């Protein structure tokens, strides 16, 4: 739940909560809320969106982002970030830029982008990257495995390229939506 006494005097507070449905994974999850992974994911989403949302415009306010995963087949963080970007944009909250995310891994000396659940479960190193495409700034970069630094460049490049492709797609869809909405409203 959101904080009550933690209102910041000069910025908006961004509060993110992640939950996954019990039927989202292969085996039915027993405890969907409050577990460590949900808390950590919520924290990562908050860090990502604090970098993108112009919080100075709304002091002493709170922006809530609730994400629920219905089907998890790898790349859940990336899917959450992309979906939340569209939601924040639709709500009219001013943002610096889109946030596009993608996961990447390294298998058999090849960098792979957008890993599926099977590829993630194989145990190789995986990287999650959230990018602000217009300026090329990285909002969040997370990896918790061992990867040799020589390979980091290629994996990062694969993730960045995939995130830019996502941005191209979102760009086209949002423009079409804005055009249709303005035609409807005359």
């Amino acid at each position, binding site marked *: 739940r959101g904080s*009550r*006494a933690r*209102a910041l005097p000069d910025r908006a507070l961004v509060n993110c909560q992640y939950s996954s449905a019990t039927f989202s994974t292969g085996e039915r999850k027993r405890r969907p809320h409050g577990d460590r992974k949900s808390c950590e994911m919520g924290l990562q989403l908050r860090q990502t969106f604090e970098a993108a949302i*112009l919080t100075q415009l709304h002091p*002493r306010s709170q922006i809530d982002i609730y994400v629920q995963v219905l089907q998890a087949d790898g790349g859940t963080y990336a899917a959450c970030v992309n979906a939340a970007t569209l939601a924040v*944009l*639709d709500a*009219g909250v*001013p*943002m*610096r*830029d*889109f946030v596009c995310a993608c996961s990447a891994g390294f298998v058999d000396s090849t960098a792979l982008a957008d890993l599926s659940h099977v590829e993630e479960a194989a145990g190789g190193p995986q990287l999650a990257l959230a990018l*602000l*495409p*217009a*300026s090329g700034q990285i909002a969040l970069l997370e990896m918790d495995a061992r990867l040799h630094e020589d390979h980091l460049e290629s994996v990062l490049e694969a993730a960045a390229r995939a995130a830019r492709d996502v941005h191209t797609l979102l*760009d086209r869809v*949002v*423009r079409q939506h*804005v*055009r249709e*909405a*303005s035609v409807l*409203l005359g």
Partner: protein
Amino acid sequence: MRSRRRFPPLAVMAPPVRYCIPGERLCNLEEGSPGSGTYTRHGYIFSSLAGCLTKSSENGALPVISVMRETESQLLPDVGAIVTCKVSSINSRFAKVHILYVGSTPLKNSFRGTIRKEDVRATEKDKVEIYKSFRPGDIVLAKVISLGDAQSNYLLTTAENELGVVVAHSESGVQMVPISWCEMQCPKTHTKEFRKVARVQPEFLQT
């Protein structure tokens, strides 16, 4: 002689509407000044909302570049705004209200407000009884004094002559007529009830 066919004058075409998305670079800081829905970085103006670009050409100064969304953003009650609200419940210490209108614009979702006992009147604040000032269902004109604390209830005041109850129904269900600043009378049963009545300007009264 060939007769010339007169073509009707072409309708003036509206300038093409340009849509933008967050992060899109609009122009240089020398060509325009940033308005709402934009931000500046490294000498350029970028859009921060998804909507249409509007340029307002000022006389002499740079045009103001802003991005407008189609859906109107909700008008929020600001400190000092006159609001129209409906009393939902009363207590010996305060009255809870639903804020319905801000000025003359209706709100899409109503906000909650509180009128404390000491904010009902300007004089004799400690002798106020809420039961004799408001009842549930009354329509009240109030002014916002604070945006509220953690429970997010706006704090309102009626401590002015022009603020207070404007429409009230008596216990028999008939709309009452004000007879003084603290009493209203039911036209059917002629019973008087206590309210903190607003002195509405005569030009706003509809008879």
